[in-house]
């Protein structure tokens, strides 16, 4: 049996100064090679959980293992195993795509020749080769989203965390991004994805977890959950399980 990409057990976490725990006894497993989606209303803790899984937040109770490595014990050394595509643009707009990739490639520990090779490939797939030397501040939203993704996958991570990777982009860019993510997954990268684009999520994720009030309220294959709750789509399932009350 292979080691899970992510294994969370009995996780307890609260922000400093916060009275109640954000998470208490939370457990979740994402298998290696899965396309996994994490969904829930705003403010239920999806981003917090993503930040805990990527080591941006530190926890004291419970355990989070990434490919078998306890995150809190190896805060830096295991970072090469995963990539992170945050919702905010995480690059330097004053630089070109090529310059950004060279910089982040060095931070991932890649050799200059490897950076050049991987950069050329990714920029080609994402349709950015012709503008690779232009400054990012002149780019459209869709192009910026694609370069945001390119930086996160430059080092060919085993696990890729994606926080709203297609927010605010046109259909063409969304299609390119989703197709590329599927290709990466076919090559062995585990995808851990969160989004409010439920239609897009349906096409990408094979397994999902629904969160509400700091808990996992449903976790299974998407088709099983739809069948179990007699819903035709993720939106119906989402509303059926979480209701219509605002959480934020």
């Amino acid at each position, binding site marked *: 049996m292979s080691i899970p990409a992510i294994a969370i057990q009995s996780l307890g976490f609260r922000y400093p100064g916060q009275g109640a725990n954000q998470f208490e006894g939370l457990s979740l497993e994402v298998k290696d090679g899965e396309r996994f989606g994490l969904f829930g209303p705003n403010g239920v803790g999806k981003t917090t959980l993503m930040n805990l899984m*990527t*080591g*941006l937040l*530190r926890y004291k109770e419970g355990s989070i293992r990434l490919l078998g490595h306890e995150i809190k014990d190896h805060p*830096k*050394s295991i*970072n*090469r195993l*995963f990539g*992170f595509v*945050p*919702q*905010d*643009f*995480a*690059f*330097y707009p*004053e*630089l070109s795509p090529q*310059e950004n990739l*060279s*910089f*982040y*490639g*060095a*931070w*991932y*520990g890649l*050799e*200059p020749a490897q950076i050049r090779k991987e950069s050329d490939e990714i920029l080609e797939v994402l349709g950015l080769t012709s503008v690779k030397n232009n*400054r990012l501040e002149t780019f459209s939203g869709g192009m910026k989203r694609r370069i*945001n993704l390119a*930086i*996160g996958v430059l080092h060919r991570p085993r696990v890729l965390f994606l926080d709203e990777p297609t927010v605010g982009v046109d259909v063409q860019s969304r299609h390119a991004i989703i197709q590329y993510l599927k290709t990466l997954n076919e090559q062995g990268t585990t995808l851990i994805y969160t989004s409010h684009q439920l239609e897009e999520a349906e096409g990408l994720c094979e397994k999902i977890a629904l969160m509400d009030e700091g808990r996992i309220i449903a976790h299974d294959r998407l088709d099983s959950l739809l069948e179990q709750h007699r819903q035709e789509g993720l939106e119906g399932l989402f509303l059926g399980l979480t209701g219509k009350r605002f959480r934020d």
Partner: protein
Amino acid sequence: MQILIATIIKDFRILLRDRIGLLMMFFMPVLLVIIITSVQNSTFELVNNNQITILVANRDQGPEGAHLVEAIGRIGMFHIQVADSTSSNTDIASRLHTSDALVAFIIPKQFSGTVQAKAKSIAQKALADSDSTNGSITDEPKPEDSLIMFYHPVMQESFRHSVEGALHSAVQVIQGEAIVKDLYSAVNSKSIPPDLEKEILFGQMPMSRIPVSRSGIQVVPNASQHNVPAWTIFAMFFVVVSLGSSMVREKNSGSFLRLKTMPASYLNALFSKQVVYVLVGFLQATVIFALGRLLFPHIGLPTLHLPGDLFGLALVTLACSWCAVSYAICVGVFSNTAEQANGFGAVSVLILAAIGGLLVPSFAMPAGFQPWLNISPLHWGLEAYYGLFLEDGKLKDVLPNILSLAGITIGIQLLTLYGLKKKNLI
């Protein structure tokens, strides 16, 4: 090492592409140094070369009043404007408001009488036996017989003291002359010869003014030698405004979030910023010193004479720049918003400049402030620069200052590390 090189290249690229920011980084310090040096130079010239207009009303009918006016003129510090002696005190004072002069000096009606009476009394007592010298020499003059100096309130205290001192010395010459004349008459039973009188009045001992230097080369200090190094340090520390706020913006940006999820330490980013901005500070100082040497003579400012020990100058400049950059990074790490970094950074640099002796010379600061000098890195930088620029010292002469500056810098770096740990940034 590859990470550090890549980060330095990235930081340089970003810096060089912000052309307006770069222009401000060099243009503003140059402007600051030129303006401050020009202002200080005009004050310096006002005291040393230019003459202060003084309004003199001589109400005395005797010879001593005229002698006093002549003695004041001989000082060389004043341009005398004669006021109508029949004008009232109020009228003369009111002319200061119309900016005719900064100072007015009124010689009272009885001035000759008072001076002569006092001189006669002193001469008599000096020639009598020693016991009779006890007690007061003569009665104090009545208030209406006093000399009066009106001054414009814009005159700073130190400047007013210089004017007062100059006027007092002129009065003393007149009094001394009167005493000698009386003594001469009493001893020789005839009037003092005019040549001797003139010699007493104006035959002052010459005094050479020699600035001390460690090398023995006499460089006469001027406004540029004083102000260019001082305000260059200030400009270097003002990097806190741009670098401090840029640190905060980066901390709150997505790129920082990504860096935190990467296998390398954020310390690489901080080290790179230090390398890049220390070089910028060094370049700022180089540009300012070059302008002081090459441009200042063409815009009517005194030439900046560079110290003999250029290696020492480079080392002091690097030490100042490193400290300034460390301080800016520390402010950036502890601030939560760019506004906090800008506000605290700018005001704190001004405070450090004040207690460091940039605004008021350290020797002129109140005794209570003296211990605080040592905590200001600007003080140590200034002392090191003055050691080189004003005293023409060598590196060994300013090494204690460089070491103190380095000590403060290391302290700031440790504080920054503590801040990074506390804020979970490393």
